[in-house]
């Protein structure tokens, strides 16, 4: 079920009334039933896969807690193999086989790949990581195993974060399912506010922007460099608004039912370095990989050379890329970020010396603008790989964009008008203006949030001001939003 569908609105309203109408002790179970229904709205049969993994991890978690020594390690390995095996089978098997076939072809070995005709279960990467987090934490004795099977199932299946995160940790989430969640109107209102903002990002910015991006990428050969530059730039906002919009709706809807989910985004486009970007972008994934991959890799060696640290960093980012999908474009996306991180750390002293020599460090505002600008350009480059359907297409996009500086100064007003016709950039001038204004509005609100916190000033205002804000958002969504129930980009992962 998509958050931006009529079906979800009805589901959410019905669940809200039912949830607060029944006694507290039954509410978690109602959420579990609702989450099953939510998940089964996509492909019903896939819930069996999900419950198989839940069952395996539930029992292994209990056994790990009671085991000692090598048995403990063996049980952990069993869980990791089961979870990653399922992920490999559904997500990477065909990719792996196709690449083996390609290699075989190169070495003139006759190998025809066996390809599976299956659809990737929705959000598999998310709940596999969330399950693994539980088992590893139990193994590390930082989390007591959950004895109630249904509560553990809800930990994995809680509908707001079931298909696209945030990837939660057991320490943060599990205890909440045992707590009492009374009706709290202030909290509910706050949750709805966050959801509304998420819907604005998704429906007004991401889905309108998608019209341009999809059109230009589908007609790359016929598009000019300027069009491709505009589309690639808009994709930066599409991706952010699509995913952070989803996360806001997830956090907000969990809050309505009394649960706290972690924030997945913290204004990433105001980052001053790539390292900071990853502390602000898809936080639940980057911290997951830091805690369960990067740190174990670094500490695996007793003598930690710089080279080993760089290697660990690079590998972590390549896997972040691969986590997104079975395509070399995602591997390239991860490798580029890994490269940025390694290069950034390696050249840090030199860059600081240069900055000091030219006096940039003495003008903080200029320094900040420079750092944010460079970070954004680097992110922009990596997102071209993220959006492209193949490495060849990514390279074609770079070629096209390279022509843009030679076109831009020569485009006349009628040329811009021509480009904005449906055949040029996929949307008319009115929709393009809506996109631009909505992005400006987003930046203003985010700047405001940086200074005052998420909607905190609105909370303190009178009802008329608050309602004015809500109405502005609701009617912006209804009038300017693309309400065609477009799926979320991260659902495919």
């Amino acid at each position, binding site marked *: 079920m998509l958050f931006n*569908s*009529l079906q979800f609105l009805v589901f959410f309203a019905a669940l809200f009334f039912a949830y607060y109408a029944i006694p507290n002790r039954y509410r978690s179970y109602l959420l579990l039933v609702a989450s099953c229904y939510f998940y089964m709205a996509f492909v019903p049969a896939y819930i069996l896969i999900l419950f198989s993994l839940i069952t395996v991890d539930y029992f292994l978690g209990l056994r790990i807690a009671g085991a000692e020594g090598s048995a403990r390690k063996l049980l952990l390995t069993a869980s990791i193999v089961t979870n990653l095996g399922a992920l490999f089978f559904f997500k990477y098997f065909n990719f792996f086989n196709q690449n083996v076939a390609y290699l075989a072809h190169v070495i003139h070995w006759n190998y025809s790949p066996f390809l599976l005709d299956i659809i990737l279960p929705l959000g598999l990467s998310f709940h596999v990581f969330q399950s693994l987090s539980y088992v590893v934490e139990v193994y590390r004795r930082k989390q007591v195993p959950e004895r109630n099977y249904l509560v553990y199932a809800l930990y994995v299946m809680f509908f707001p974060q079931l298909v696209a995160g945030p990837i939660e940790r057991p320490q943060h989430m599990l205890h909440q399912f045992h707590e009492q969640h009374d009706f709290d109107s202030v909290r509910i209102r706050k949750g709805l506010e966050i959801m509304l903002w998420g819907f604005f990002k998704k429906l007004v910015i991401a889905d309108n922007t998608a019209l341009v991006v999809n059109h230009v990428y589908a007609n790359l050969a016929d598009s000019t460099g300027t069009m491709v530059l505009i589309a690639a730039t808009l994709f930066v906002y599409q991706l952010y608004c699509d995913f952070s919009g989803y996360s806001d709706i997830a956090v907000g809807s969990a809050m309505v039912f009394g649960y706290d989910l972690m924030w997945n985004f913290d204004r990433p486009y105001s980052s001053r370095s790539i390292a900071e970007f990853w502390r602000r972008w898809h936080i639940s994934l980057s911290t997951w990989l830091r805690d369960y991959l990067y740190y174990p890799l670094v500490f695996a060696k007793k003598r930690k050379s710089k080279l080993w640290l760089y290697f660990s960093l690079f590998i972590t980012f390549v896997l972040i890329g691969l986590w997104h999908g079975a395509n070399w474009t995602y591997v390239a996306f991860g490798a580029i970020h890994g490269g940025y991180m390694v290069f950034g750390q390696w050249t840090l002293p030199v860059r600081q010396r240069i900055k000091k020599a030219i006096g940039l460090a003495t003008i903080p505002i200029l320094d900040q603008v420079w750092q944010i600008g460079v970070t954004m350009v680097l992110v922009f480059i990596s997102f071209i790989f993220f959006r492209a359907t193949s490495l060849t297409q990514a390279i074609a996009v770079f070629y096209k964009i390279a022509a843009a500086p030679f076109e831009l100064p020569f485009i006349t007003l009628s040329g811009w008008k021509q480009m904005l016709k449906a055949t040029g950039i996929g949307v008319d001038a009115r929709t393009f203006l809506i996109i631009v204004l909505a992005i400006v509005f987003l930046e203003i609100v985010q700047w405001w949030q940086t200074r005052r916190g998420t909607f905190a000033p609105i909370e303190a205002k009178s009802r008329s001001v608050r309602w004015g804000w809500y109405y502005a958002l609701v009617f912006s969504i*209804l009038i300017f939003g693309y*309400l065609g*129930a477009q799926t979320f980009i991260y659902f495919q992962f």
Partner: protein
Amino acid sequence: MKRFLLTAALFSIPIVAAFVFPFAFFALTREFETPSQVLAVQQNSNGAIYRSAFYDYDRPYKTLGAIESDPQVLVLGTSRVLQLHASLFKDPSDFYNAGRAISKPSELPVFINALPSNSKVQVIVLAVDQNFLSSAFSSPAEPIVQPTHLSIFEFFLAQGWKTAWQYYFQGRFSLSGLIQLNKTSQNIGLTALVEGDGFQKDGSDEESNIAAQKSQRSSQIQGALDLITPQGSGYFFDSSLSQQGLSYIEQFLELCRARNIKVIGFLPPYATEVYQKIDSLHSSYADTMQEEPVALKTLFNQYNDSFYDLSNLSTFGSSDNEMIDSAHLDEQGSARELQYLANHEAALKPYVDMTAIKSILSQTSSI
């Protein structure tokens, strides 16, 4: 909780209000009805026509219409065949006009596969628009999805309510006028109800304002002429024939042959000036005008079917007086076109009422 719900209800009033009036417009104009409901109403009424002002469900509506009416002669094409009426046939129930059931070649095989295997269709008169063989019309077909009440309601929430307000403020209708029309007319859809334009029971078009459209013919033709340049615009022709488009047509012919359906294809006519301008150009773009009928005729003949190039009005004795605009024939022009095809095609002739055609043609167009 009660206080919270009361506040939420109060807050929702302006939002609900924004939807209430458009909802009333949709209900009064029966825009919520599904194609199957529309067809049922048309079956049981005398002359109810259907046209929505909000969405384009023509493809599922016409496909379902073709299935349910199960005719022996089926006209297939775009809006350029919509003036072929059942009254031109000896037994009107033998005929269904599925104009606008397709808009590109890839939809042809999908359409024929949608017909039941025991369908009675014997002859398909197929208008192949000239631009069908340009690359812009070569994309694959989407499946035919019949709209449900839920999908129509979702459309209403997403887009329809906004369009209703837009039309209201443009003065296209008034609420009191609609209430009155709702009582007196059986027509379905805002355009059908207010403007009197729409699909009839036989699938053909009822146009209330043909005279008004003809009065603007010259300016409309001028607009079309402006699009015709040596480089082309992709609208009329392309610089080469799309092999993909040809392959979809071939798939269609193959499926028809498997069902023993005779296909009579033709290129529909243009207004004289439009035809002459394309013909006078000497470019690879214009050359396709010469190549297209040859390629299509060869293809149709391979399947023992027939093909006619009627791009030039004079081929079947028509003139600009019988054109509504640069590309659409009026009722008389369509009758003349059908007469020409029936005279050349023994498979079609037995169904056509030549007397009715002569009677229509005797009423000389005054415009």
